[in-house]
């Protein structure tokens, strides 16, 4: 059971008591992600997530980490297309300390020139490590959206260009905080070994006096349908093998598309793994999923379904796309078999329970579901809602993909000798 309330300053609060665990979690979801960034400010939402860890009104730099870890806990933050989250999980005795830390930086983060320059350096090293200096860095989440969408919001690189990051000024940071980190633009989620009333009282005590501020206009992200197939190629000097990604725009009903992506490309029993890996050995690894990061229910509409494959140089992208088209046609005409549907539902149910067994994942899942969809049980309710998905619903989802347009992104290895 969950409890909701809204403070007078507009801050939304969600509490999910879980008695007996002796653990607690606190997260804050801000309704700003990299799709909110204006031109010239690519990567700013993520950079600002880093700046929220640089100290605040009553806590010097690094003190958030020391407070939470010194109470035996863990913390992190992450930036998504439509939101930015911060979380803390710790022994339940540390609950109030975590709330104090989150409230202090929602009230007044320590935005200084020195901290800004330091974190621009850190973020550049993060991008080198995760994108520039490794194989398949940023594949496909950075390069596929520009082929699927038109608007700046939907197509730009959420990690940001180095030029934009270097140009970010302190004034920009202050303006960004004022606009997007208002209490009315945020959701606090508390889960764990605490009574609901006691948790709400604690949130009131720590966040209640943060002044309300005007709310930002949400950047429009809806787009007209794709009218033609598109393709693109990127060169990768670190990749040992070619790869490709196929993206489709997704429409409702979403859950049938999640089932479809699992039928297609998750696990040894999926159609693409059987055909492309077991039967023909064209492909080394193939995966399908909803969301550009492979996480379903993580963005507002429009979302995408993505299939990625790392493949042998002996197979061409056309060969692989042809197999995918064939399987989608077959599913559109006949739907999945009863066995296929049963095992996919069992897989999704197991995966949901398994993810939800970890307190940090559970906390973030409740918060993101509530922020994006106004229902904290969007994801945890999946096993129940799967009962409403039959062969026909999956066939309809497959038909929608086949009748619309798609984008194909190829990764071409261009590394030197010795690979």
């Amino acid at each position, binding site marked *: 059971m969950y409890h909701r309330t809204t403070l007078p300053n507009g801050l939304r609060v969600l509490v999910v008591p879980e008695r007996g*665990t002796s*653990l607690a979690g606190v997260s804050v979801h801000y309704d700003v992600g990299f799709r909110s960034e204006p031109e010239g400010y690519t990567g700013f939402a993520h950079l600002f997530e880093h700046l929220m860890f640089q100290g605040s009104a009553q806590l010097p730099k*690094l003190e958030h*980490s*020391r407070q939470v*870890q*010194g*109470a*035996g*806990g*863990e*913390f992190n933050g992450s930036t998504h297309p439509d939101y930015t989250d911060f979380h803390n*999980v*710790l*022994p339940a005795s*540390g609950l109030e300390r975590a709330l104090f830390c989150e409230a202090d930086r929602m009230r007044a983060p320590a935005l200084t020139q020195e901290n800004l320059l*330091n*974190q*621009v*350096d*850190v973020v*550049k*090293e*993060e991008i*080198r*490590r995760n994108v*520039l*200096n*490794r*194989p398949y860095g940023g594949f496909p989440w950075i390069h596929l959206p520009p082929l699927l969408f038109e608007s700046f919001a939907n197509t730009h690189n959420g990690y940001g260009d180095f030029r934009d990051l270097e140009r970010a000024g302190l004034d920009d940071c202050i303006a960004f905080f004022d606009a997007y980190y208002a209490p009315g633009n945020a959701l606090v989620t508390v889960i764990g070994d605490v009574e609901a009333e006691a948790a709400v009282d604690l949130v009131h005590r720590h966040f209640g006096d943060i002044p309300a501020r005007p709310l930002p206009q949400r950047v429009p992200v809806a787009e007209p349908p794709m009218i033609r197939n598109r393709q693109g190629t990127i060169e990768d000097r*670190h990749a*040992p*093998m070619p790869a490709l990604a196929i993206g489709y725009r997704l429409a409702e009903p979403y859950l049938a598309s999640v089932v479809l992506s699992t039928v297609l490309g998750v*696990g*040894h*029993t999926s159609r693409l793994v*059987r055909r492309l*890996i*077991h039967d023909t*050995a064209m492909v*080394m*690894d193939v995966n399908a999923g909803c969301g550009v990061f492979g996480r379903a229910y993580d963005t507002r509409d429009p979302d995408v379904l993505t299939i990625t494959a*790392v493949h*042998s140089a002996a197979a061409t992208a056309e060969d692989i796309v042809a197999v995918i088209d064939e399987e989608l046609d077959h599913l559109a005409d006949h739907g999945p078999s009863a*066995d296929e549907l*049963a*095992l996919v539902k*069992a*897989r999704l*149910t*197991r995966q949901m*329970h*398994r993810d*939800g*067994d*970890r*307190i940090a994942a559970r906390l973030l899942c409740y918060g993101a579901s509530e922020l994006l969809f106004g229902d904290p049980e969007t994801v945890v309710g999946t096993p129940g809602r799967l009962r409403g998905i039959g062969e026909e619903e999956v066939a309809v989802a497959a038909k929608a993909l086949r009748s619309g347009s798609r984008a194909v992104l190829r990764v071409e290895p261009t*590394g030197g000798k*010795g*690979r």
Partner: protein
Amino acid sequence: MKDLLLETGLRVLAIRRPSVPLVEMRLHIPLVGDAAQARVLGAAMLSGAHLHKKLALIGGELVADVDAERLQLAGSVLADGLPGLLVLLAEVLTGATYSGEVLAKERERTAQHMALLRAEPSLAARAAFRRQCYGDHPSAQGPPESGQVAAVTAEQVRLLHDRAVVPRGSLLLLVGDLDPSATVEAVELALSDWRSDHGGTARPPLPAPALGGITIVHRPEATQSQIRLGLPGVARTHPDHPALHLANLVLGGYFSSRLVANLRERNGYTYSVRSNLDFLCERTMVTIETDVVTESTMDAIHEIRRELDRLAAEPLAGDELDAARRYAIGSQLLSTSSQAGLASALAGIAATGLDLDWFVTLPQRLEAVTADQVVSIAAAHLTADRCGGIVLGNAPALASEIGDDRL
């Protein structure tokens, strides 16, 4: 909880933890031998399409993971599918045939998989570091080269299975929504045909690591350096180990540590810097890992060395020890609060031959450590002059900066 050594020599551990309606499984099988043969075995033993369909229908999944020390079959299943999972596990252990056709396909795929792993800078750096420390010792090898994988034969894999995939010395751990006594009985019945006269594979003792200086290892077109340094520590059963555990945390074992404050938050050299307690066979090392842009390599190494010497020479700051201690105890509680986390943690402990009690009583031993003991252990083991390792990166650029291939 039920802990039983079966007549076949297999140790079975079943723990009730009904937080979600699942069961997590870890089967740890010590496996030392030719790295390429072991990788192909791991890929081929689960390759039957029928196996995966039967598993999927009971809401289960099974993956084989091979490294230089062991084969691990890891799985999870909807709780009422546990009997089915055990039956399928028995089929894999006693019925894998490694036909020529299956083997040819899995060999090809394994060769590609190894090429992908070897291209990952973090894995390449780990392999280079272990090679620097332990040379050709079988327990220290990284992913084998594609040519070695291509030479593996079906006969070799069958022999390796007969010799290594045996119950004696292996551990089956089941954690989740289960009845421990009934589960152990069900395991005994389901796996009764998994038997062998062999005692599993043995390995030669691991020598002390060779840590003289820092070697540059070239990686084409690298824009960052992977710095991997190490210092020999004391084993987990040594009385000084709890102090080493906390010294590692203060140095770089968590975000609130000195290396993070210095290299990341003060100097902006890196996104991530960590020190770890790295256990390989009977050896314990404190390892330090960070990735920095090529031009910052020397500065980053200099600061790491400075922090090592500072830890060994100066008293700890006011709250440093207590914070590290509370984190150590709290993070153990957090990481074992899920079925999968508990199963992985216990499998890791038991696999090294440590008593599970070692893990359960670790918080008490950490409580007893004093600040003086942390500084003493650092002075004895963690001074900069004991530190060595590798830098994986752009060798010409690094050499021109320092004029040699040794730093």
